[in-house]
């Protein structure tokens, strides 16, 4: 009996957080249509640290948006924690986004004319976290990304790198099980990049799943698994031997 439970447990443990089956994303119709994703299948298990690389226009962001439940695919299936996301309605998707996913956008996407602190607090507000706790967690997150002294600045009063770090803080503060980052180091110098990657290491060490899109090899090499894309397809998927013994 006890053995059976253990066996089930281990199966559950092994269950992938992300399971994408034959994803196709097509833009436009007829001859003019293009396939941003052309049959992508991918599974990522809980606790993995994955980097996605590939040339510009290869479909990385498209894939990430689908994984983040922000976009739907033309055909294919997507399961997150065993739940089929591809057939969920918008209202349930909103809950999934809030509860499970921390998304760092390529273009920051901060709310304009709103302070860094309020931006970081916002996802927690939608989750119903109490104002006091929310404020504390937001302050901690901003401290972690090195913006403890800039909490009351609005996005236009921050540099690109600082805005990027606010976006990171916003994604971290909700303590998501799945952290998705689209070019998180695009606007950062090497020092900030190093700090951010250390942070990702810590988050991953705490058992959370991290998926990062990047152009930079040194960023990719901090991940434990590297996926390469080209023309809407996965063309390479390998374990990073430097990091995984």
């Amino acid at each position: 009996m006890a053995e059976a439970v253990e066996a089930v447990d281990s199966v559950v443990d092994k269950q992938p957080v992300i399971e994408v089956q034959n994803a196709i994303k097509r833009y436009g119709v007829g001859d003019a249509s293009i396939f941003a994703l052309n049959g992508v299948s991918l599974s990522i298990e809980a606790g993995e640290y994955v980097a996605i690389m590939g040339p510009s226009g290869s479909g990385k962001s498209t894939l990430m948006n689908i994984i983040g439940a922000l976009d739907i695919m033309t055909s294919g299936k997507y399961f997150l924690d065993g739940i089929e996301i591809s057939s969920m309605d918008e209202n349930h998707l909103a809950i999934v986004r809030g509860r499970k996913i921390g998304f760092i956008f390529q273009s920051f996407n901060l709310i304009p004319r709103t302070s860094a602190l309020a931006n970081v607090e916002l996802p927690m507000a939608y989750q119903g976290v109490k104002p006091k706790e929310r404020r504390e967690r937001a302050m901690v997150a901003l401290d972690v990304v090195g913006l403890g002294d800039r909490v009351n600045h609005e996005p236009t009063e921050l540099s690109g790198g600082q805005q990027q770090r606010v976006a990171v803080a916003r994604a971290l503060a909700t303590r998501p099980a799945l952290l998705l980052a689209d070019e998180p180091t695009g606007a950062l110098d090497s020092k900030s990049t190093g700090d951010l990657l250390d942070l990702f290491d810590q988050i991953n060490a705490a058992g959370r799943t991290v998926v990062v899109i990047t152009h930079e090899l040194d960023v990719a090499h901090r991940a434990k698994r590297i996926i390469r894309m080209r023309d809407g397809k996965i063309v390479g998927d390998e374990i990073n031997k430097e990091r995984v013994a």
Partner: protein
Amino acid sequence: MSVFEIIRFAFRGLFINRLRTALTTLGIMIGVASVIILLAVGNGSSKAIQSSLDRLGTNSLQVRSGGGGFGFRARASANTQKPLTILDTVALTDKTQAPDIKQVAPIASTNGTCVVGTNTSTPSTFYGTWPSYYEASNTSIQSGSYFTNDDVTQARRVALIGQTTATALFGTASPIGQTMRCSGIQFTVIGLTAVKGSSGFQDGDSLVLIPITTMENTITGNQPLTDILVEATKSTTATAAQTELTAILDARHGITGRKTADFSVFNQASLLSTASSSSQTFTTLLGMVAAISLLVGGIGITNIMLVTVIERTREIGIRKAIGAPKSAILTQFLIEATILSLLGGILGVIAGFVGSHFTIYGTKPVIVPASVFLAFGVSILIGVFFGGYPASRAASLRPIEALRYE
């Protein structure tokens, strides 16, 4: 996430976009206020006409020389036409033939200018009459005294003047006992009539009243009367009085049919209904103008609300991407729209009330309560609908679509 929290978001949204908030509020305010004021002006002017007619009294009748209506004198019978005379007036006082007539006053009118030193005034009403005129025309005095029957028989050179004339000639000084020259004749002012206000286009206080005998002796000579003012015993007997006086004058003037009549009778009661129906037309017209301005205002509100939501589609996308449910976003935008419309509406009502305190082109506006509710209600409905509907559409978009919105 609590409703309280969403309300806080809505207020923050409004505060962050201060300028837009102010302009939207202003737009709604002007729309609401203009509707209220326009209708108040229409209503006020119709009320003014009504009350000045009321003051004339519905039991008074006016006999005027000539057949048909005003301006349509029966020229064909000009040779047989008999003018109205003092004797006609006296004939109407016969209690047996005319039991429903209370009293009668002749009116001889002239145009003349009155002068005191360098001050001049041309009264719009310059009448020669006798004392029963006061009651028949609802004229009273605020100071001094009336001229009497004795003044009429003696043809004394005394006059009652209205407030407008008094101010023009004597300024702030009391005119009682002062002298003035009208049409070259010197008169002593013995009374100042109570303020009547203006009725439509005529200033009721630009007035000089003198004994009819004095006017005939010194100014007009033996000219026929312009009118005979007749007061019926009650407003309900006005029609009976009209029949009686018509019979008496027909007999005196040898009239056999209405077509050949050389006088006409105006009944204030019927005049009143004509006037009030025409002022109703005026109010309806203003109401249409107000409806159009409400429509235009409504389109303005719609426009601002649509632009606002489109402008914030990206923001809606961000909120959705970080886990905001559609209901939270929709509630926030609905509350924002409601606050804006309410604020604008309330300020508009206040502005409408304040604006209606001023006299506009001689009319004292009187607020129509229905217009307040209408303007307020419509602007809020429009504001909430056009703030809510596009927000609900934007909130239904997938986050990535909303985020792509430029």
